[in-house]
């Protein structure tokens, strides 16, 4: 009888991504078109608005780059932890804490010259974000606490802490009751470097190079990747698993924290609750879509940032709720996850013709 059997490939399929990714995107777009039709909106028109809004013009591309910067930094951080199979889903909270750290630097040391001020802000943000990431690492090491739960709970706690600060002690008396800090002085705002894309781009490039060099050229980086492949073998090889665990979560948090710094400084020019809009979760989607490779992370950060900018345009032009972006992200990730099956499995025809092949 004729049928198909699932067989594991001897070597992973290399070019499967070129088929799987577009297919996953198409399925996700088809699903979203259906959703739009439910609400009596034209999917074709929406697709035009979405892609024009995200990628269609020089302005659109610059907007997209602005969103891509924090997503890239968070995603780079998350991907380091994922490499070791440590599930840091706390980028959102580490991002918020980074914003808090940077704001603290501005409020405590006003009047520093710009290069010093920006460096100090970045360092403070990296420290606060890093500590927020280190905490679940230590808890896992000492008490075996599941890091998925602890990093996620610390998201809620970190965001509430940030809200506490802007509603309470750090609230600007001149803000007419709005929960926000006073506007940062000019020295604390990242300058524009490329069109109106700010110097956060430079931070991204430095971070990307540093992470790549670390992972590919240092002993610790090599050990980190090895520990992710096989924790037990890593222990036999005397790789310091516990140290690495805390280390990756700290670095991960520090990168997300720097993203928070860039956002408060360049996008909002102050700390306010609307800082947290889910970049930390988008970062996880990006990290997984790019299979943890740094160049792909850059590419997918820009792509998903473009979708988010396009979704903003949809909201303005066609009154599509902002949640549309989340649906797209989630569904694309589900489709890609399913599609990755074809990297390592294939279908083999079983039937009369096979005879003695078994």
């Amino acid at each position, binding site marked *: 009888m004729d049928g198909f059997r699932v067989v*594991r490939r001897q070597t992973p399929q290399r070019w499967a991504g070129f088929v799987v990714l577009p297919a996953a995107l198409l399925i996700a777009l088809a699903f979203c078109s259906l959703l739009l039709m439910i609400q009596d909106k034209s999917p074709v028109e929406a697709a035009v608005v979405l892609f024009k809004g995200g990628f269609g013009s020089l302005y659109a591309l610059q907007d997209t780059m602005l969103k891509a910067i924090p997503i890239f930094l968070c995603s780079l951080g998350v991907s380091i932890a994922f490499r070791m199979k440590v599930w840091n889903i706390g980028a959102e909270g580490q991002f918020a804490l980074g914003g808090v750290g940077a704001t603290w630097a501005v409020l405590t040391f006003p009047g520093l010259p710009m290069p010093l001020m920006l460096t100090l802000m970045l360092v403070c943000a990296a420290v606060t974000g890093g500590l927020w990431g280190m905490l679940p690492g230590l808890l896992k090491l000492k*008490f*075996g606490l599941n890091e998925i739960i602890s990093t996620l*709970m610390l998201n809620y706690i970190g965001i509430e802490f940030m809200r506490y600060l802007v509603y309470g002690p750090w609230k600007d008396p001149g803000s007419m009751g709005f929960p926000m800090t006073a506007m940062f002085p000019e020295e604390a705002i990242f300058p524009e470097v490329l069109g109106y894309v700010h110097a956060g781009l430079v931070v991204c490039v430095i971070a990307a190079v540093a992470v790549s060099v670390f992972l590919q050229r240092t002993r610790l980086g090599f050990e980190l990747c090895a520990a992710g492949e096989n924790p037990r073998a890593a222990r036999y090889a005397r790789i310091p698993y516990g140290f690495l665990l805390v280390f990756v979560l700290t670095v991960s948090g520090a990168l997300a924290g720097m993203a928070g710094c860039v956002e408060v400084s360049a996008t909002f020019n102050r700390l306010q609750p609307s800082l947290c809009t889910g970049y930390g979760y988008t970062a996880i989607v990006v990290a997984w879509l790019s299979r943890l490779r740094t160049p792909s992370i850059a590419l997918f950060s820009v792509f998903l940032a473009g979708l988010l900018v396009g979704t903003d345009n949809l909201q303005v032009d066609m009154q599509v709720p902002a949640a549309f972006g989340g649906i797209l992200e989630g569904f694309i990730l589900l489709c890609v996850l399913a599609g990755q099956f074809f990297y390592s499995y294939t279908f083999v025809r079983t039937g009369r013709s096979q005879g003695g092949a078994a």
Partner: protein
Amino acid sequence: MTWDIFVALLAATVLAGTPLLYATMGELITERSGVLNLGVEGMMIMGAFFAFIVQFKTGNPWLATLAAGFGAACIGLLHGVVCLIFQGNQTVSGLALTIFGVGLSDYLGAPFIGEKTVGFQPFDIPFLSDIPVIGPVLFQHDPLVYISYLLPWAVMWFFRRTSLGLALCASGESPDAVQAAGLDPVKMRWLGIFAGAFLVGVGGAYLSLCATHMWTHNLTAGKGWIAVALVIFAFWRPGRAMFGAYLFGGIMAFQLRLQALGTTIPSSLMMMLPYALTILALLFSSARGKGRNAPAALGDNIAPGA
């Protein structure tokens, strides 16, 4: 006087604990079958939405509850498709499901924000509700609360006394053994995902039909994640899961009561309380048990063609 407040607080504990109880029990069944589904938050809020919309259109709360269960189960089955058929990573798939579910409920629910519904109304159980303290605490609620009292015992009975339940738990411990016994562990896992997601959906239904009686943004507010944590806290045992659900129900009730009384503690610090205590509760239980009771094959996919 203080006694009355205490009784009211206990009654509020039961109410706040009920959605957690449904969601925790659902995730517990799924995890016992060997599937880690981190999409609880997404399925729960979709359950809340399905319940709201069916209640809003038909006015029948029972139909709404069923819709919530089946709706959430359909969302949960996406996890099954990704992990059971296509061998996707269970952790990431669950996260994707949460992002997807939260987005979808926000999208579909956007036109209805602030709309009120009737939902379930409390009714007193004759005789039982007249007992002092116990009556007002346990027996003056709505039907979903009464059903939830039976749930842990039903799940315990299912796990221990039915062959289906035993096979389901075995699929979480050793799928190979289930296969060797001539059963299909993948089918058991489908069942675990479906039944679990159904209960999570009913937990969501409780939120929109009994707790708020309306649709708002972010109705679950992390309760799905607390349920995931409670399964670990409960060492994957239904009895302890019930204890955990009411413990956290108590914390939430206490927090709400304090806020209603108007304390000087800033509300954002109060809002942190359940999340911080989730970490603390897990610290205590993992320091004691180190999660040794976790199903052995939890999170591992069953490779096809093996």
